[in-house]
């Protein structure tokens, strides 16, 4: 497992493109990535696949972000299932996880690896 070569970090958009307290969608090759920017949190940036596997539409970046217990989540805007921003797990349907991407800020650039 350790031998797999990591893809390189690449700039995907600017900090200014993000919405504080919510999400936006960016294109990574042909993949739709939801970027969530929570400046009030210790870790401020999160990235998930944008495609809602339950509602079957590319919409997760348009959901409401919040917390359930200690977990940070986004609620799908279609049918309101919650997806963990850190792990991509769906809290209501264990089989419906979404991909997670490594993401960080470098100055005003948003860098992603995936």
């Amino acid at each position, binding site marked *: 497992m350790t031998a797999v070569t990591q893809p390189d970090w690449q700039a*995907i*958009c600017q900090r200014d*493109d*993000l*919405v*504080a*307290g*919510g999400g*936006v*969608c*960016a*294109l990574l090759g*042909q993949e*739709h990535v939801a*970027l969530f920017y*929570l400046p*009030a*949190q210790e870790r401020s940036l999160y990235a998930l696949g944008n*495609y809602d*596997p*339950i*509602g*079957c*539409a*590319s*919409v997760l970046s*348009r*959901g*409401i*972000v*919040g*917390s*359930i*217990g200690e977990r*940070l*989540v986004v*609620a799908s*805007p*279609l049918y*309101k299932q*919650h997806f963990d921003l850190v792990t991509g797990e769906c809290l209501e349907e264990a*089989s*419906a996880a979404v991909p997670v991407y490594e993401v960080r800020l470098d100055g005003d650039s948003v860098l992603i690896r995936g």
Partner: protein
Amino acid sequence: MSELDIVVIGNGMVGHHFVKTLVESGAPVRITVLGEEPRPAYDRVHLSDVFGGSAPEALALTDRETYESWGVQAHFGEPVSSIDTAGKAVVTSLGRRFSYDKLVMATGSYPFVPPVPGHEHKRCLTYRTIDDLGEIRARAKDSRVGVVVGGGLLGLECANALKNLGLETHVVEFAPGLMGVQLDPGGSGMLRRKIEALDVRVHTGKNTSNIGAGDSCALKMEFADDTELQTDMIVFSAGIRPRDELAREAGLALGERGGIVVNSSLQTSDADIYAIGECALYEGRIYGLVAPGYRMAEAVAQQIAGSEGAFTGADMSTKLKLLGVDVGSIGDAHGRSPGAISFVFSDERKEVYKRIVTSADAKHLLGAVLVGDCGEYDSLLQYHLNDIELPAEPEALIAPAMGDAPVLGVAALPATATVCSCHNVTKGDIVSALDQGCCDLAGVKSATAASTGCGGCAAMLKNLVEDELAARGVVVDKSLCEHFPYTRQELYHLVRVGELKSFDALLAAHGRGSGCDICKPAVASILASLWNDHVLDAAHATLQDTNDRFLANMQKDGTYSIVPRVAGGEITPDKLVVLGEVAKKYDLYTKITGGQRIDLFGARVEQLPLIWRELVDAGFETGHAYGKALRTVKSCVGSTWCRYGVQDSVGMAILIENRYKGLRAPHKLKSAVSGCTRECAEAQSKDFGVIATEHGWNLYVCGNGGMKPRHADLFATDLDDATLIRYIDRFLMFYVRTADRLQRTSTWMDNLEGGIDYLREVVIEDSLGIGAELEAQMAHVIDSYQCEWKTTIDDPQKARRFRSFVNSEEQDNTVTFVTEREQKRPGRKVKAQAQRIAVGE
């Protein structure tokens, strides 16, 4: 078993209740109803409400269609003229003959008119039917002074009616006091005091000897004590007499002073003929209240359906509001039981009188009189009905609170205790409703019908439900979500009083965690209702629910639909062309909505500002179809075109829609205005609906379509434009202020203690003194209105949020369309997981 033929004579409240009960029992019967009045049963108890603002139709208990759907053959305006007991048939005024296996007489009573010379004068009327009301109203038009003969319960109701009609009102009573049957002299005296303070003149101990032509008025009443009273009209309400003439002619046994004699099975002297309600005489007594009549009806229905049913007398305790005065009478109000002792409290300053009558050992409550304050009625009634032992010092039950008065806890009531006497619901019924899964007050009300009649038991029912839930360990947690230990109402209050302008400020002051998809939209709505900032301002945008977030309605594939406002459903041909052209240009699916607007589907998020630029330039505004906000005010074409319209319903609908557009509320709000009583705009299915009358507008509130349709309730009648708007302002703001999250107006009202009466007090009488405040708040919302879409497209910071991808101009390739019926629609999708499996194989 072959079907029994049941014929019912009379379709008053009791006759109708019998039919309803029998139909609901499912017994194999054919029912024929023969009614004297031209209309199906209505609520006679609330007759005077018609003068207080209700429409006569609002009193209806049923209609012809309902009877038809029950398979009941009903003939109204066709009284029975004779009963052939030998041939077991009745003959009607039209000569038609109906055979019966069982005959039920529910002929009711008629108002007693004392045989005073002159009582036939055309200005002398009676008070019992809707037709009587019409005559009283007509006569009142050219009258200044009105007299009610009779100071009993009905007489005082009638006095209220005359007062509401604007007449100088007098009550003339033969006996020495008012309501002599229900009240002792002390209570009667206090009642008189209070009624006279309301400018109703009371004359007791008056024996009318003649009615002749007057001098200053149309009539002159002369009394046996040589005094006289001038009046323009007289309404007799001096007691009732049973309608027993058919029974008499048929040879049935009658009481000495009238009434059809019945046994405990309600059978008359002919075993196949029953009598129920006010025409029946049981153990020498006529029961002139509706509740005992209902019990009789149920007993007979049970027998016909094959089970046991009996009537063994009924408690005649009663609680009511007469001319706004609370009056209660329980059991032996006069203390006539042998050995009875009394405890009396009288406060002439506050005009309150209370008396309890107990057994000699002061352990059992035999009766009570309450005037001016009925707060203890429910407790006292339960002590009386269930023979619960009184506390050691029973006087504390009625003494004003000097420390803690002993209160009869609902937990102490036996299961047989009647909580709602209108619908005969016991504590046991309520407990079993809770056992079967009801978990709140509204659920119990709809399951048992408790507190849906007069509403007198509302407070007790609420206590009982809460007590029972607590006893089951159900903690009624009213927290909005894990982030705020408050209800929506409490949060609203915190935001308003603390003048908090953002979610973050509220969370910092009163919450914990990061918020969620429950509290964020709820708080966003509260902030919008109170301060009305743009919902996409930086502080608010990410709080908004799915549709508000992009000011459009998200569809299943992530695209949006657009609904421009078409106020009142009125649109020019030019604007229709614009909608068509825009739809064509952006290839949008178009559909007419239920709210008389046009919905354009299939727009991608980045197309929304482009489309709205064209719509705004053509004069359209946002329609708020995406918000928990005022949606549409539907209208019929009204008096401007329609042959039947009596008011300009389109004009009023446009006025209302433009006034309240943009108002954010706990749930969506719909309205409609109909131009006449034909109600083509379906206003009675709306949160607030308006129907034109000859004299103005009738306002209906708290209806809705949707999952659980509910007809709106008539709230006020014949309003002028300004009053209509004032009532709607207050109604809407009171709802916005006090409703729960996502609670529609109907459930909100069902959960208000006191229901629509309470709502009327708040809105019409301004009982909370917040009318001006509510209006001012509404004025702020109206003054700060902006078209959210115009502001959005004019503000580059807001407009740039409408992008599919922040780093690419590409379109969302997961959105695909197919063509159906010459328009596009979303292509069908296979679930991602299923797709994956298919690929793997």
